[in-house]
């Protein structure tokens, strides 16, 4: 409405960011595909032909129907059905929604932890830095997937199957967020170390601002671009981790499937020739992760944070 928004839009249109986006075909295609998938996932309840959570709509007689184009297909189920007779297109739409929700949620949690601990370690230094980074090192050397599997196993054993199934979404966000925070903390710490030597920090100190204010209001905004890059890649990692946990049976239950648990439930039927139940959700998962990774690569090139390391 106001001139401020117009000028901001103009500024965006003249930025290097937009310029390099327009010239990179891979980035445009990736972004378009990602946008399409996110929209499809968000509007899944409107788009999906059937509600996979609604048991009344499922008919077991329709189980294991192949996708359209193969003999024996039913046009009512464009991508075929799974072993319980659920429409595969609908379950994939809902599954993408669950996977994206967990991916975003886990990254928000790890960004919160990573930024907090990274800022503290980088700015305060000394013992705080030593302890926090040691924990991060050890956790990373165990690989985030291993940490996630172990935490998931312990949770599952202590909550029991039913209880775990009900709160699985929150559990997975928690598990993946906690398992992967060191990735972001390291990046944040590295850029804080570079920033804190700059003059504006000295100026803020001279003006008598408190440590907390300098950390969050002055240094943090200047470290945002590497955080942005690594957070993008981390969404892809979180989605893969979620799929892996669900595939191992430590994630979403079959009644409320994510892409990972769809692949798992389909895998039991692959020997009987019903490849589509497992491979179509698998393809969706790979495309989703691939476009996010490609966008992350492009972002890294554009923002060029020297401190980022894959």
């Amino acid at each position, binding site marked *: 409405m106001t001139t401020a928004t117009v000028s901001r839009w103009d500024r965006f249109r003249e930025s290097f960011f937009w310029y390099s986006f327009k010239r990179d075909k891979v980035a445009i295609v990736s972004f378009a595909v990602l946008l399409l998938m996110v929209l499809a996932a968000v509007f899944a309840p409107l788009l999906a032909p059937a509600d996979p959570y609604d048991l009344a709509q499922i008919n077991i007689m329709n189980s294991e129907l192949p996708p359209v184009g193969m003999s024996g297909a039913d046009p009512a189920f464009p991508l075929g059905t799974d072993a319980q007779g659920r429409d595969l297109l609908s379950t994939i739409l809902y599954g993408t929604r669950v996977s994206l929700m967990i991916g975003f949620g886990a990254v928000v949690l790890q960004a919160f932890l990573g930024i907090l601990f990274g800022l503290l370690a980088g700015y305060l230094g000394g013992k705080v830095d030593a302890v926090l980074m040691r924990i991060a090192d050890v956790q990373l050397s165990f690989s985030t997937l291993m940490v996630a599997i172990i935490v998931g196993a312990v949770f599952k054993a202590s909550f029991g199957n039913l209880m775990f199934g009900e709160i699985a979404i929150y559990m997975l966000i928690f598990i993946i967020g906690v398992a992967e925070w060191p990735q972001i903390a390291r990046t944040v710490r590295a850029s804080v170390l570079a920033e804190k030597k700059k003059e504006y920090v000295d100026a803020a100190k001279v003006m008598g601002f408190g440590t907390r204010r300098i950390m969050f209001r002055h240094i943090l905004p200047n470290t945002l671009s590497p955080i942005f890059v690594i957070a993008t890649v981390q969404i892809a990692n979180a989605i893969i981790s979620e799929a892996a946990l669900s*595939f191992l049976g430590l994630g979403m239950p079959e009644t409320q499937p994510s892409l990972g648990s769809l692949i798992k439930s389909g895998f039991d039927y692959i020997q009987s020739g019903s490849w589509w139940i497992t491979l179509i959700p698998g393809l969706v998962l790979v495309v989703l992760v691939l476009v996010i990774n490609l966008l992350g690569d492009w972002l890294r090139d554009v923002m060029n944070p020297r401190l980022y*390391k894959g």
Partner: protein
Amino acid sequence: MLAFLVQRISQAFLVMFVISMIAFAIQDGLGDPLQEMVGMSVSEEEREAIREELGLNDPMVVQYLRFAGNALQGDLGNSYFYSKPTLEVIAEHLPATLELVIGASLIIVFLSVPIGVYAAIRPQAWLSKFFMGVSTVGISIPVFLTAIVLIQLFSIGVTVNWFPSDTGWGQWLNDFFSTEGGLPSYGRGDELTHLFGTWESGFFTGTGLMHLVLPSVSLASIMLPLFIRLIRAEMMEVLQSDYVRYARAKGLSAGRINFLHALKNTMLPVITVGGVQIGIMVAYTILTETVFQWPGVGLMFLEAITRSDIPLIVAYLMVVGLIFVITNTLVDLIYGLVNPTVKLTGKKA
């Protein structure tokens, strides 16, 4: 150097201490040994007496010290399901996992070095671009999905009839895109050679090797892109360095420069980072073994979770923790020894 040595080793002990605390907390919080030992009919007084006798009413510190003391003597309790000492169960399953890791490592070494070096020497060649593109896509494919696709293609087989089969070339195209299948995708086969102790090897029989193919290729697929990228990046950096330029100026042959002078300095960081990655591969063995029902420690761990076999879960944690700590410490020490100026950073999960 000595300070570095002491620091790393004491850190290893500290980490092992923390792992043992976590393991103890899991055992204490989840497992009620009484439930497994006595039936429903035992009265509350008798239960209390057994608790007292087992030392379950002792203070936490005393219980932890007992747990740690037993662990140091190689006693991590008995598995509920196997009714055997947990370490014995793990020792039975470990060879299968080790052979899987060895198979995957061989594939990684023999593929990543030539591809990475080629991509570094000829960065503009279409084959290099093809390999780099494939490895970007490869990083986005989870290991269990690779495994499932491999099973579909090479175990079950795919018959294609996209082209009209009445013409000769149509039939040829159909055959070209179809796969035979037939490779085993389940377990290790029944012809294993007994080596020593609990080690039964699949390396010496035809069926044993056939059973190894798909699982090792799947496990290798997750690490291969990382190694190709790493070797390419390191090699390109080395090729820019002064001594390589000097060797070129001196008129040495390209082959000699690339493979004798440059490759040596490329492999140094690759080997040390590789050591860490092979430790991380243990996590991926859980996924691979689940898909292929490979009777290794990963599958055993997952089964222990579904059976709530707490002592086995705890023992697995301790053993895997020990393996990780030992490999990481060794890698750090070797790295510090060979190249004291460089810090190990940016390990990817």
